[in-house]
């Protein structure tokens, strides 16, 4: 019982072309982000990695919260705050029907941060301190986190590569890894673009999501390669035909798995806490790209011309 019959053999060129296109697009995003943006990094690094102060607090309003433009608050803040440097470097947003204020500043001491809240309370009215969420990260720690995340990522990738090299023969391992780096590069590229267009920042959860994607992607590819290996041993059809058959046999499993993993992620995106939003988005993207690469791309590498 097959949902589709995937014509892998005839479409090999299209698949590889499409992947090359996606990779090029990602590379352009990464390069553009490195040279043409204000932050000059391959990806827009968030507060976790560069340090700073992030503050979210709700206003206490009767029925409806009055409409205040962030600019007017900043103007007032410039008058009130004696630290001119600070007032010019604040990013201020109102969300959730003007109820939620979210503020980003460079690194502050706890005292300065408290002063800032008092000042803002003077300008826009009472705040609900029970709803406060504040993070202060020193620049030193940020740098450390960045190296820490990068190391974890590389060590884990190395460990995974090592494992599949022992489990499979070298050719299979190489292709599984190619598919894996393809997935990671594309997700990274998408977030480079998101950083350029929507100024989305990545935090340490993004690094975690890349690692999780790595695990999933390898898992998916391994399952299909397992099947191909098994069928090649027993099959009396041609090499390419057997691969195509194996992919079609595994197709249901891979899509079903992706769907069942995507469902909880979608519920987090829609109903979950805001801090998990981009994390879930990046995981979902990774799972979609990962399924594509393990169904179509990785087996295409194995096809003989």
């Amino acid at each position: 019982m097959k949902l589709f019959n995937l014509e892998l053999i005839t479409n090999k060129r299209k698949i590889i072309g499409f992947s090359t296109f996606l990779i090029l697009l990602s590379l352009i995003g990464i390069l553009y982000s490195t040279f043409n943006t204000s932050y000059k990094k391959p990806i827009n690094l968030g507060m976790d990695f560069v340090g700073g102060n992030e503050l979210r607090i709700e206003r206490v309003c009767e029925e409806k919260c009055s409409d205040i433009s962030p600019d007017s608050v900043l103007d007032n803040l410039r008058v009130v705050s004696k630290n001119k440097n600070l007032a010019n470097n604040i990013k201020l947003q109102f969300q959730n029907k003007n109820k939620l204020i979210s503020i980003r500043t460079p690194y502050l001491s706890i005292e300065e941060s408290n002063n800032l809240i008092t000042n803002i309370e003077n300008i826009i009215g009472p705040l609900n301190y029970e709803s406060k969420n504040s993070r202060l990260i020193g620049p030193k720690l940020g740098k450390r986190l960045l190296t820490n995340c990068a190391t974890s990522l590389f060590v884990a990738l190395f460990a995974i590569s090592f494992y599949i090299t022992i489990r499979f023969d070298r050719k299979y391992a190489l292709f599984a890894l190619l598919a894996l780096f393809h997935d990671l590069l594309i997700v990274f590229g998408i977030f480079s673009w998101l950083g350029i267009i929507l100024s989305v920042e990545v935090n340490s959860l993004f690094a975690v999501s890349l690692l999780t994607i790595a695990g999933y992607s390898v898992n998916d590819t391994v399952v299909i390669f397992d099947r191909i290996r098994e069928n090649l041993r027993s099959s009396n059809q041609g090499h390419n035909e057997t691969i195509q058959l194996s992919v079609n046999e595994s197709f249901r499993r891979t899509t079903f798995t992706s769907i069942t993993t995507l469902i909880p992620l979608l519920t987090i995106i829609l109903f979950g806490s805001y801090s998990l939003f981009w994390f879930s988005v990046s995981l979902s993207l990774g799972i979609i790209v990962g399924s594509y690469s393990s169904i179509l791309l990785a087996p295409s590498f194995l096809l003989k011309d």
Partner: protein
Amino acid sequence: MRRRQGWLFLIILLLTLSIYLLINYPLQLGLDLKGGSQLTLQIIKEEGNVTKDELEAVNAVIDRRVNNLGVSESNLQTLGGDQLILELPGEQNPLAASRALGRTALLEFRTQKEGTSEDLKKLDLQKSKIEELIKLYSFAEKNLKGNEFLITIQDSLKEIEQKLNYSFNSNDLYGKLIEIKKYVEKEITNLFIKTDLSGKDLINAGRRQEQTNNNWEVLLTFSNSGGDKFAEITKSIAGTNQLLAIILDGESISEASVGSQFANTGITGGLATISGSFTAEDAKELEVALKGGSLPLPIEIVETNTIGAQLGSKNILKSLYAAVGGLVFVGIFMIFNYRILGFVSVISLVLYGFFNLALYSLIPVTLTLPGISGLILSIGMAVDANILIFERIREELNDGNTLTRSIDSGFQRANSSIVDGHITTLLSCFVLFLLGTNFVKGFAATLGIGVLISLFTSLNCSKTLLRFFTTYQSLRQKNLYLPKKKFSN
């Protein structure tokens, strides 16, 4: 068959045990779910790495200080080789804690160099002027009409600058104030000579309100040898115009003369008071810092997270809805596609949930937001294992095999894929747990535990349950396993 019943018995036993655990040892919630403050303290060492002994020594001092602060249920743990994480549940404003903890609290007793009285007088005058200016500044900072004060501050600062013949490095007003304050403090400290009496000679510290005014003073109790040293020092300067300075972290917090009546014996009794016009809060912070002893290495607070209690409970509810909602959808999807098999997987997923939570309370794992997302993802892994098996069973059935045989070989043939997939994920979790920050560790822990349990539930629980169901004749019709499909036999 008997062997399978053994498994069934084991599963029921484990389930009862899990429920028992969950009732008696409730889950520990992280700060992001219950509200509170979290401080990350970085030990600063100029050269070389922080050794294990140094880390432990800092940990001990901070631990004593936290206890003296009187925050209930605080939690202090080391992270990596040179960081400490302090959690203060319920605390919404970590300012006081950060002040009492961040201080090195190196207490020194110094005697004044001879013939420096004039210099000291001059410096003390400037110091009090600067302190006034700083007070005025923070008042102006909070006041909407504070701008006129700033001009006053600027003018006075210029005057001090000329008197001290000092040139500034900072550009902004506040930076200048702090800079010159430090400079003056250093100059004052330089007028005094070190003695061998220090904070190490203390055995206790306390505080009390002065009787004549509202200021507070801090009481010091020396050890026996410390008391002797103190007597010796006070004897040497008694009746002269040299002062005794108490210096904390390089700043002179109190300077006092010793009366000539102490010229013979010095001040004995092993007690001293520091009266430097402290407020109640200042006195408490100093007491806490001194009681805990001085830090062997300075520390810096590199991260502060504060989460309001309301926000915490909101986070719980949201994640709970998301998780439960997601699971219900997954369950519907499985039953729709796999019928009886789907039903079996739903039961084994429920078991899976219980086992997971029970392990969290047993180990214990503190549940945080990233932890919850790790749990949700691990459920994805568990479902995946079931799907792999069921697809195989289906294929076997399609090939015309009997139900029992199909089930057996389905499990057998899916085995290697499942193990491979789980091991690669476990590897990532392992690395994340070893290298990751606290935040990341929570995720790695729940995902890792989930993957381990999934190996058990998907390979064993599902199989046992399926075997159990297939003992009933009415549940053995193939079309309960394969929807909309005609069979060849």
